[in-house]
């Protein structure tokens, strides 16, 4: 019985690769499997090559494996492109159309099933589009999946949007694919999966998890400008926020998005925006305003490949230092980095409390790989969520105050807040240096006091900040440090190294700023070889560690600035080489 599987669906943009991959991921999840998906697609709507990998395992997995077990290819080019990734005993399903045989040395041991997917779809169902469901039916046969579960997913996908007739036709096509595969594929060539109950779990993308976290945390104002790969947060929230009494606004640019969120927050809403790449650069201006006027706001940044427009549909971790040290002037900010979809949810919920409590901008920093791909996680717990609005007063308390000072020089640096319309709370949210009531003040002593007040806000924040998590062997000479979606590949690498008798550990940073220096220092002291794993060119995290931990042990960087996320072997390789 198969316990671990990687299936790739490949074809041209417009072939329905995304649909097919999504259905397959859900289908495997319903059989009790853990899922990680990965899409590689062009910044183009039609015509160019695209692929979708579903990694599935009976045990918990977070990342992709190094090899593919099955390739479902809708065109010949995809076969040639991905043949080297296919395991020695792998299976290739392909459409017979335009078939050219790959060189024999590359096909050795691999099993090829040529299906005339398009032709069958046309003949039997009148439209080529049915090839996707036919293929899913055939895959179900090979993997010994429950056809009823596939029917159920098809119905969920089509019933509301397209009606019963479309569901019936697709279900027939799926069954047709299943039967057709039975004719073509010998029993010995099947790969029956082990199964277990689909326990209390969900299959969700990082972007959706952030959206759900925001909704649960009481975010009621969301302003954004369309940008890949962050738009899914908004496109998810837009279906729910109005029902919860909130508003979603499409702005003219990212300058407006963040300024609008600040206005909304000033007026009392828990407010948020999301962006990526160039949008984040535009937000740098208002980021500083949030710091100076001490306005809570949450910014989700789903990183993509830069610089400039870069590659909008490829993942990268090249914007870390921008949020930690970026914008003009100095002001406190909090930068969070979820490494799992569960953490996307939890850290987003926490972000709103942190923003309110510390009255500063909070960044949720993820990557395209986390944002747009789907992963299984245990069902989310809403009952434990606590809403903490910090020093936001209420109208009654405010009335009883002798004198309200919005920017009071409090010992902890955090001052009381009032909202417009509240009596006795009139103040100015001021981007100029200001006095305790918010009015412009250029006095040198006042400037010093105000600067110190703002900058000490986070001094005592560490109990509220998500601490780093240590994964892997308890004692190990090899240590990895990383954050975000590289977690999956690092954990796979730890397992591969363990098999090779090289125990290793991983320090996953979940708060990047304020920097968890004590934990990192301790981890460095306990490890002999430390590898900082980052999906960028210059090793931004390593630079950060060196600036915050002094003296700092030697750090080796494992960097990847290609268009694809890390594979485990790209991490294992450098570790093994360094030990020779």
């Amino acid at each position: 019985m198969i316990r671990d599987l990687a299936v790739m669906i490949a074809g041209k943009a417009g072939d329905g690769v995304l649909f097919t991959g999504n259905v397959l991921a859900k289908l495997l999840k319903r059989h009790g499997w853990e899922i990680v998906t990965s899409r590689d697609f062009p910044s183009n709507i039609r015509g160019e090559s695209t692929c979708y990998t579903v990694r599935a395992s009976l045990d918990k997995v977070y990342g992709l494996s190094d090899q593919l077990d099955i390739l479902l290819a809708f065109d010949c080019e995809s076969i040639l492109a991905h043949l080297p990734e296919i395991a020695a005993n792998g299976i290739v399903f392909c459409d017979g159309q335009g078939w050219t045989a790959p060189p024999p040395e590359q096909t050795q041991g691999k099993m090829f099933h040529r299906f005339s997917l398009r032709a069958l779809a046309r003949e039997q169902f009148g439209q080529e589009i049915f090839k996707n469901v036919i293929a899913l039916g055939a895959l179900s046969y090979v993997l010994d999946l429950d056809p009823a579960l596939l029917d159920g997913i098809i119905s969920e996908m089509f019933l509301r949007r397209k009606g019963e007739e479309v569901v019936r036709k697709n279900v027939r096509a799926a069954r047709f694919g299943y039967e057709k595969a039975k004719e073509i594929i010998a029993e010995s060539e099947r790969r029956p999966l082990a199964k277990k109950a689909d326990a209390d779990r969900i299959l969700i993308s990082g972007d959706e998890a952030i959206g759900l976290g925001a909704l649960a945390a009481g975010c009621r104002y969301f302003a954004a400008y369309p940008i890949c790969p962050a738009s899914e947060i908004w496109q998810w929230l837009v279906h729910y926020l109005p029902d919860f009494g909130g508003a979603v606004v499409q702005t003219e640019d990212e300058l407006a998005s963040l300024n609008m969120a600040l206005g909304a927050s000033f007026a009392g809403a828990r407010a948020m925006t999301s962006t990526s790449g160039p949008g984040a650069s535009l937000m740098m201006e208002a980021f500083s305003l949030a710091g100076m006027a001490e306005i809570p706001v949450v910014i989700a940044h789903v990183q993509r490949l830069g610089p400039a427009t870069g590659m909008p549909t490829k993942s990268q971790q090249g914007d870390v230092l921008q949020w930690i040290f970026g914008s003009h002037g100095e002001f406190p900010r909090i930068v969070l980095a979820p490494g799992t979809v569960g953490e996307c949810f939890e850290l987003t919920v926490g972000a709103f409390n942190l923003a309110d409590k510390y009255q500063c901008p909070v960044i949720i920093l993820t990557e395209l790989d986390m944002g747009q791909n789907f992963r299984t996680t245990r069902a989310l717990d809403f009952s434990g969520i606590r809403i903490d609005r910090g020093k936001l007063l209420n109208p009654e308390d405010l009335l009883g105050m002798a004198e309200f000072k919005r920017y009071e020089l409090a010992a902890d640096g955090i001052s009381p807040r009032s909202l417009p319309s509240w009596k006795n709370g009139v103040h100015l949210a001021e981007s100029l240096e200001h006095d305790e009531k918010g009015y412009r003040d250029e006095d040198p002593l006042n400037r010093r006091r105000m600067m110190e007040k703002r900058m000490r806000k986070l001094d005592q924040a560490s109990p509220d900040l998500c601490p780093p998590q240590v994964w892997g062997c308890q004692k190990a000479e090899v240590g990895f440090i990383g954050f975000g979606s590289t977690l999956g590949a690092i954990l796979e690498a730890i397992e591969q190294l363990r098999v090779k008798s090289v125990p290793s550990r991983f320090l996953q940073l979940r708060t990047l700023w304020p920097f968890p220096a004590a934990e990192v220092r301790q981890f460095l002291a306990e490890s002999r070889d430390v590898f900082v794993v980052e999906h960028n060119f210059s090793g931004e995290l390593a630079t950060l560690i060196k600036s915050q931990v002094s003296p700092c042990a030697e750090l080796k960087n494992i960097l990847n600035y290609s268009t694809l996320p890390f594979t485990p072997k790209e991490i294992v390789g450098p570790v093994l080489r360094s030990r020779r």
Partner: protein
Amino acid sequence: MKTKESYHRVSPTWCKGCGLFGVFDALKRAAAALDIEPEDLVIVTGIGCHGRLNNYFRAYGFHGLHGRAIPVATGIKLVNPRLQVVAVSGDGDAYSIGLGHFLHALRKNVGLTYLVVDNRIFALTEGQASPTTEFGMVTLSTPFGSKDFPIDGPSLALAAGGTFIARGFSGEVAHLASLIERGMKHNGFALINILSPCVTHNKVNSYDWYKKHIFHVEDVPGYSPKDKARAWEALNSPEKIAVGLIYEGDKPSFEELVLTDRERPIASLNLKVDAPRLGKIMDRFR
């Protein structure tokens, strides 16, 4: 009843004779005429001499970044539509660095009163050419005369679908106050472009110059602000500058369209976590 004094915090320190005194006075008069509680009034300003207004005016205020008054004000208005939100900008703020926001607020018809204090110069930075500076004018940044042709805010507003387009003159405070008052009552975005002399850095467009160059649309026989063609004609009058309520249209306000329940502002929502409801939403990911 409120009086002007209800909104007076401290006396302004603009240059003696600055047009902003007239704007300050007119805004207080308009607010008093509508009996607005100072706590229910939010003044959002950009960067420029006008930005000092917040220091002198008693009301909630937000003095943000150069050119960004409109998005901040929009956020405030949507979260609490019961508030009277007045955004104030200079000509640089509104028509240069913040022009994108201006056009989109008009398009969206957000319920803001937008005062553009247009002195045709960047005054706070000591006198560079602004987008409304006349062609050929010598300024700090254009010692050989401005090579840029000026743009006209009200004309842009008309083209962008504005529903309340007015021009006032800070030398005519009562008239200006009445325009602001009407703008505050308007459902949607109300632009009041204010001709406002800078006595220090713009020696050309003085009070006397404006007095010679303006005409009131109210005085034009048969003029109706409902007539877009007439409005366009008035805005394009050769030699003379039209003041008064130039155009008034009817379109739903953005907050009407976006907010499901304006009687229950976002600002006062109970954020209590509804776990069963959220659980049902999560079930779609199972």
